[in-house]
């Protein structure tokens, strides 16, 4: 599925839209980390919590749980929150 990458992570992906797969957000992030080593730890911490200034959207709806189920037609957005920077 399509994943939109925020500007702060372009140093990893080199592209603002990438393809990744996973049945849940957790699996998707594992796939992203496999493709772009180090990316996952910048958005999810070692206790598997979403980092405070990152936002996760699936099809324009904000998601707060990494176990959120995904379909192959979903669009996932990783966004920088306004609270950061």
């Amino acid at each position, binding site marked *: 599925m399509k994943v939109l990458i925020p500007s702060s992570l372009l140093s990893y992906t080199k592209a603002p839209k990438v393809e990744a797969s996973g049945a849940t957000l957790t699996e998707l992030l594992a796939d992203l980390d496999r493709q772009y080593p180090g990316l996952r730890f910048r958005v999810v911490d*070692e206790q598997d919590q979403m980092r405070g200034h990152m936002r996760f959207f699936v099809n324009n709806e904000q998601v707060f749980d990494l176990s959120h189920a995904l379909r192959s037609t979903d669009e996932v957005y990783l966004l920088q929150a306004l609270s950061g920077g």
Partner: protein
Amino acid sequence: MARTTRKSATRKPVTNTRVKRPARRRPASRVLILVSTRKGAWLLHGDAARKTWRVDGPHFLGHIINHLVLDPRDGRTLLAAAKTGHLGPTIFRSTDLGRSWKEATRPPAFAKAPEGEKGRAVDHTFWLTPCHANEPNAWYAGTSPQGLFRSNDGGVTWDPFSVINDDPQYRAWMGSVQDGTPDGPKLHSIIVDPRDPAHLYFGMSGGGIHETRDLGRTWTSLVQGMNVVEGFDAANMAVHDPHCVRLCPSNPDRLYQQNHCGIYRLDRPSNEWTRIGRNMPKHVGDIGFPMVVHPRDADTAWVLPMDGQTVWPRTCPEGKPSVYVTRNGGKRWQRLDAGFPKSQAWWTVKRQAMTADAQDPVGLYFGTTSGELWMSRDEGKRWACIARNLPEIYAVEVAAV
């Protein structure tokens, strides 16, 4: 940069029978200043006289750089503790003095908590210390919240070091966010005894000072003689707030400490700190963040007083910047302020943002949270601003290159 040496001057033959040897000159070396800021890192390359500085930066524009350190063992590996306003923490590594960087593949991170328990997450790596000279490529890192980590491969991968991070006693001593700085509690001042790689110290704000003589198998605390904020119980380790601890390179049995509550000196084998800050002038006080020790004279140390009264402004007392030096282990302190503004200068200098080089005379350097970098070429007698308009300065280190 390669070390340069000057050839001895050619001398005329002497007429008596004793042959004088030419005076041995210290190999020339240049100073490299490493400036860590809230918005990136800058390297300043000095000329041989420490008079002009070539600015190299920004590196990592927009990244929060907590500490940037050059490995003194190889003179070219740089480690930068970094995060951004949105992204989690990491370590960047350069082996060519900052021309190119690679990210650590496993930055410092706490262990995943068992099911049902709440674990901690590293917010940022705060302090980097190279390991002993005979442990090349090994580094220690202190984090916020408090954690102790070690890398054995030049900063590429990091693992928890010793029991500190998850030991119930140390976790209790680390306290909560209320027992740390406004930016989170820190593990800092990681010190390696140059005589013995198994002999280490570290400090925690809060959480006191701790020592191991067996490379982290066992630890003892070292807070005797240290004051705490009035009202708190000094028996509670969590409320001990050492700001910066330094070991004297010329006498590793002597340590100086700038604490939230005063300036202290410790002479081993004693375990009791002496509050040498009581000898500072009363109208200035002995609160501050950095502590800088002379590379060759263990009786000499410098502090930069910060106003710690009322609401804890943490600015120059009375708006008059000063550095104070002791040349007799803290018995007497002398004010040094030639070149500083005389009034209405409300600087804050963080604990990692003041340092000394090893030249003769010693050069001193500090950076303010208002983005100014100041230095003295004569051990603090006279000061000059060598860079302005930088972002908030978090740390200043110097290295001989």
